[in-house]
């Protein structure tokens, strides 16, 4: 078996599929952030609503991906996108909601109450408090949620190749149907590398974006 040979011979296709994989996952994550972070923030105002939103996201994430694609098929067929990238990205957005909403909610909830009190007492509007205090303090935990979502999505996107979404899953799917072992392994290795790389990058981002005053505090507590 010569995986390296396969990779070397198919450099162009490897790059194209990796790139496709990255943008499917990135687009999905971007949309998921736009939906999940505001939801996570808004639900901090009402415990009951928060509980039911998080429960719903919990249910979503337990649906196996193949089953979710099956459920989305008839729905998205209505707009003519039963197969391909649209259901793939939709599924990834749905799966991302739990880690993003839960982490955002918990992080905002965990901002010490005396800071909220101080902010209110000084006459900061709710928006201003969010922008200047709550989000900066919550951001490391929110990024941790994004990290979980991104890594998970890289794996699920590989399966989405079965509904014609493209990406590195194509190697695996094609390899299986053609009984082409090098191809399967090459796909698996590339997906894994991508996941590891993204995980590392997000970890770095998490560290970079943590406010300095918070970092110093953490160091002191060690």
């Amino acid at each position, binding site marked *: 078996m010569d995986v390296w040979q396969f990779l070397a011979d198919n450099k162009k296709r490897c790059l194209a599929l990796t790139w496709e994989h990255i943008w499917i996952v990135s687009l999905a994550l971007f949309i998921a952030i736009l939906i999940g972070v505001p939801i996570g923030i808004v639900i901090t105002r009402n415990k009951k609503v928060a509980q039911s939103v998080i429960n719903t996201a919990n249910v979503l994430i337990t649906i196996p991906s193949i089953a979710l694609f099956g459920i989305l098929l008839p729905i998205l067929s209505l707009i003519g996108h039963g197969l391909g990238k649209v259901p793939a990205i939709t599924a990834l957005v749905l799966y991302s909601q739990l880690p993003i909403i839960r982490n955002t909610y918990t992080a905002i909830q965990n901002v010490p109450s*005396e800071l909220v*009190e101080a902010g*209110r007492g000084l006459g900061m509007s709710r928006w201003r408090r969010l922008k200047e*205090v709550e989000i900066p303090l919550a951001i490391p935990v929110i990024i941790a949620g994004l990290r979980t979502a991104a890594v998970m999505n890289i794996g699920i996107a590989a399966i989405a190749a079965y509904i014609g979404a493209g990406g590195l899953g194509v190697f695996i799917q094609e390899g299986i149907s053609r009984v082409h072992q090098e191809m399967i392994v090459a796909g698996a290795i590339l997906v894994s590398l991508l996941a590891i790389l993204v995980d590392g990058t997000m970890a770095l981002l998490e560290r970079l974006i943590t406010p300095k005053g918070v970092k110093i505090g953490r160091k002191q507590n060690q």
Partner: protein
Amino acid sequence: MIQYENVTKIFGSGDKSVTAVDNVNFEVEKGELVTLLGPSGCGKTTLLRLTNRLLSLTQGKIIVDDQNIMDINRVKLRQSMGYAIQEVGLFPNKTIYGNIAIVPRLLKWDEDRIRDRVDELLTMLQLEPDTFRDRYPVELSGGQQQRIGVARCLAADPKILLMDEPFGAIDPINRVEIQDEFLRVQGKLKKTIIFVTHDLQEAIKMGDKIAIFQEGQLIQYDTPETILTNPKNEYIADFVGTDRGLKVLGLRKAKDVMVENPANLIQASTKASDALKFLQDKKLEHGTVVEKEKPIGYLTSANLEETEAPIKEIAEAYPKLITPYDNLKDVMSVMLMYDIRVLCVVDEDNNMAGTISLEDIQKSIMKIYSGTGEDKH
């Protein structure tokens, strides 16, 4: 001016309800500093939070400068009152500068003005601006953080300040300095201040008036001197302690009891024998030697017997000269420390202003205790 009218706050409902503030009525005059005093859980913090609408009233009303607070926009109201919370609550993601700049930025001050203001406040609170400006709260001690909390509440120069135990975590030495500095600044700026404290000494020192609470009710609202000399009931008397006589001494100044034209003055040019005769004739134990209005020292008959030396040389210097504004507690401790019953009070030019004796102080204490027992309110 802040007026509290039948102010009541009940948390929860039914059996579990807690009446944190119970039908409270009082007024804080413009430019006055009122200290709120009382045991933990008596509703001090709740009263402050009602004042800036962090909590809503269950009953009654609060009127600030003739306007019902319910008619004022909540955010505007809070920006017009500085608030230093009990837990300090500095924002860990912001530098000291960023923390103090919060309200000025809300009010859109320009950055140069904010910079000057931050330095001014840090200096006032005994923190070197260049050292502290760019640090983060975690890099400060608890007492230093608390001072930043005070600076943050003063930043935009609000007319009203709500301060919840603002000096509680500061060490005793710095605390006294900051109290003095705060009082000095308050003397100039005349803000309307509600100041919560657990420390009776601080309440007496800082307050134009003291409000003492018990289980949400306002028990007595009076000047520190009246509270100490005329506690309204057992509760207040216990609260201010059996040593309240000594505490009053901390409030009274040397000028209140000193004798301005003492009979025991002896000019430095007097001969020793004449001085001795003078003391014996007037049956005085102690003579104060003065030269051109300036006190030189003191003499007793024993010093003068069988000597012809100039009395200027015989006179013993006073261990410490008292100023008219020294409080009687300090004066008394000098007397006890140096075992001397009479001290000399001087004015700013070190000229003789009068004398003060242990007996004078004692009389002033006796008067306080003679007022006890009768309920004068």
